[in-house]
């Protein structure tokens, strides 16, 4: 049996991601949740690599796991008083969530399968089918040139080949930058230390 290593790795990462995602759901301890999440996201990064998005995968690890999740861990640590570490939800809520989630899943999975199938079977016009036939025949790993350069060029506004946006992503890039700045300021403001109420008492304390 010829093992498709690509598929094997996919299976590995996919199962880690899914299982730990479910673990996040089912565990009650918030610290453990944080950890499981971390593992799940790391696995996702692997999935990204397998899909050929190396830059994005790298960024996932750097930004998401190393930044966002760390932030969440900070939050957990700040608020992890004993009563809050595990807060249980009632059974009714679980049932409701399970039903809803099940329904959702039941809707999404057929959609996923079907879109994949239709993805393959879509327009059989000459050019497309020729390209498809060409690329379908080769069923080997395509040459994965590094995407970083292409992404970088796209972000700077130079339309990179193969990208569908003709004018690049300079504008969204700038917007994102401003957005981050705003978020920075806003978060700092929101989380500022609040003064106490009485100035006299302050004075008295200081003196």
């Amino acid at each position: 049996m010829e093992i498709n290593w690509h598929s094997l790795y996919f299976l590995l990462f996919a199962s880690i991601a899914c299982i730990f995602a479910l673990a996040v759901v089912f565990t009650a301890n918030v610290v453990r949740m944080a950890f499981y999440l971390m593992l799940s996201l790391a696995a996702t990064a692997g999935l990204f690599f397998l899909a050929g998005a190396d830059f994005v995968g790298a960024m996932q690890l750097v930004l998401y796991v190393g930044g966002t999740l760390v932030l969440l861990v900070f939050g957990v640590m700040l608020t992890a008083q004993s009563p809050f570490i595990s807060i249980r939800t009632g059974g009714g809520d679980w049932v409701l969530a399970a039903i809803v989630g099940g329904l959702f899943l039941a809707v999404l999975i057929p959609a996923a399968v079907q879109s994949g199938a239709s993805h393959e079977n879509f327009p059989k016009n000459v050019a497309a089918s020729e390209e498809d036939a060409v690329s379908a025949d080769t069923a080997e790993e395509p040459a994965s040139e590094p995407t970083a350069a292409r992404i970088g060029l796209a972000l700077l506004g130079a339309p990179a080949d193969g990208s569908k946006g003709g004018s690049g992503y300079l504008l969204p890039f700038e917007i994102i930058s401003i957005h981050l700045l705003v978020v920075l300021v806003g978060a700092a403001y929101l989380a500022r230390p609040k003064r106490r109420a009485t100035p006299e008492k302050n004075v008295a304390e200081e003196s």
Partner: protein
Amino acid sequence: MELGATLSTLLLLAWLLPLASFGAIVLFGPRMGRAGKAAGYVATGAILAGVVLSLFALGFWIGEHGLGESLHGDEHAEVKAGEEADHHGHRHDDGHAKKFYSGDWYTLAEFGGLRLTIGYYIDALTVVMFCMVTLIATCIHFYAMGYMHEELEDVTDHEVTLANGEHLRRPGRYHRFFQYLSLFCFSMLGIVVAGNIAMTFIFWELVGICSYFLIGFYIERKTASTAANKAFIVNRVGDFGMIIGLMAIFGSLGTFHYEEIFAQVRPQEIYTPTETIEKHHELTVPDGMVWAEATERAGEIVMDHAGQEYGLENAAAQMAAEANEYRDQGFGYTLLIIAGLGIFCGCMGKSAQFPLHVWLPDAMEGPTPVSALVHSATMVAAGVFLTARFFPVFTPEVLLVIAIVGTVTLFMAATIAITATDIKRVLAYSTLSQLGYMMFALGVGGWVAGVLHLITHAFFKSLLFMCSGSVIHAVHSNEMTDMGGLLKKMPITAYTMLVGCLAIIGAGIPLVIGLSGYYSKDAILAQAYVFGESNGSLLFLFVIAAGGAAITAFYMFRLWFMTFLGEPRDKHRFDHAHESPKVMWIPLVVLSCFAVFVATPPITDLFNPTAAPLVRMLEQAVPNGVAAGGASGGIVIPAEADSHEHTVHVLAGFIAFGTAMSGLLIACCVYWWRLINPDEVRAMFAPIYRFLLNKWWFDELYDKLLVRPTLYIGRFIAWIDRGLIDWLIDNIARWARGFSDGFDRAIDRTLVDGTVNWVARQTHAVGLALRGVQTGRIRQYVVLIVVGTVTMFVIAFGLSK
């Protein structure tokens, strides 16, 4: 300028000047002079100018037409060659047709055949009346300026008691008096100058309203205001008949203008397709009236010619041809009688003939100048004037009615005057009696006699009233029982009043000379005698008239003796009595001169009464065809010229003199020489005395017969209005309210509000219910988001499948 235009302009000015004075006083009265004193000057000035203009008009008339022929003298009329023997004395040639000038000054309206105009009809009568009215009015205006002087300050009216027991104190109304006098003069002159009967009617009513204002001058006195109402209402009753007469004339003849009416009723000739019939202004039923009565036949003729070309013209020609037949059959005569009676009805009201006489005695509530001007000389004369004017239209039947009414009036009034003690009442009944004489004279065919008496009566009656006013002014009482012995105190008044009394009884030397009243009374009695002779059964009218003359003499001198001779009955009043100021006695003297000389023939022909200038002027004014008299239905109206015959003249003259003297003698016996005691007589004839004292119970009769039923009907109708209609309306209002209340409650509150409230409640409930959705719990929101997403997916992809 042509005489007609001159006369019309002069008389127009003389007529309108009092109107201008009225307008000026209305606008500026209270501000004229001190307390309006100059209002008197304005009014007097206007009427004085009127006199001057009238005299000019008279002069112009005489200048153009002369005074007219004097008739008869002592010799018989000359029968000129070519004259018809049955026309007594009047020259009948083409130049004889009565001279008049008529025209229109201003057209008020024209609707189809109806023409309403302000116009004139000037003949000798008009000019003479103008002079008489303006002259007497001027004298009275002067007199009134003196008499009404107390109205210049605040007046305390002793005859009005207020609720708190005090006498009324009010500001003076001097200017108002002259305002009304001016308006009255304007209205009266309007009647005199009027050229058509519609205009006459307008001014007829105006005169009535002026009389109302003037009688009710002391309006706070209940007696005065009631008397004013009575005068106006009784006049209105007469006017009702007048309107019927007007309608009869207009409906059948299609015109209001005098000349047209007279031309139709007294045509010189009438035309038929085959011949021209000479009518010599005999009384003829006009075509209009013939066809008005023979309406069936008229309708048939029109229908026969309907639809043809020139159908109406052919119909008219046929009607003209057939008119004579129908006229001979008597069609239209009744309508003519109705027209005449209707107009006379109006005259009855205005001239206070029986049975519409009740207002004149009460009209004495007005100030004395009013009684002198309005209720003796002018307004009441308007009725006689109109009767004289409309004489051509009266058929012999109507004239008989007039004569009888006149006779009854003169007799009845004379008897009541015997017992009256209020000096003005005596004079009022005297006026009534003399008006009866005038109507009687006209009724028996004495046109000139009646109008002559009108004019002479105007002078001496106004004189008498003004003298009585002087006496009342001096003594401050109307009752003769408060007077007596005033001859020494007020000589001028006494002697002028004596002149008036002599004039009214017709004093004079028979067949020689007399005061003005002598000539007119003589003429009346002569005509009455001739009438009695022509209609054997009606001689009693003459007897009554002669008897009336006796009674007249009696009560007039009773008045004079009681007022001026004997011992004063009220010492206090006697002491305060004094002669009136100059402004009041000068008019008395002027009028007394007129009372003596107005009808006197000139020196050259002294014994011929018909030679008097006044008489000759009036002869010029006799309407066409009247002088010849007439006959119909067994009544003969003798020609006036018959009364000028010597035998009649002598007989009538002596009878008049005899009756007057006998009355005078009895009066002297009772009131001067005290030979007979009036109280004994009174006691002996107590029932008669009471009957006369209560004015023949006429007021009570009318009250029971007419006033009470009217008031009863009025109360009944008022009940319908208040009890029935108001009850209905109020209840309708109440029911409507109740209904709307119920409706409101049921529909508006229950249904509409209920619905709205229900909707609001439901909304609230839904809101409350939906509120539950907002639990505030984040996890539930997440679940809902997911559910929503799932649903959308299902719908989107489910549908696409």
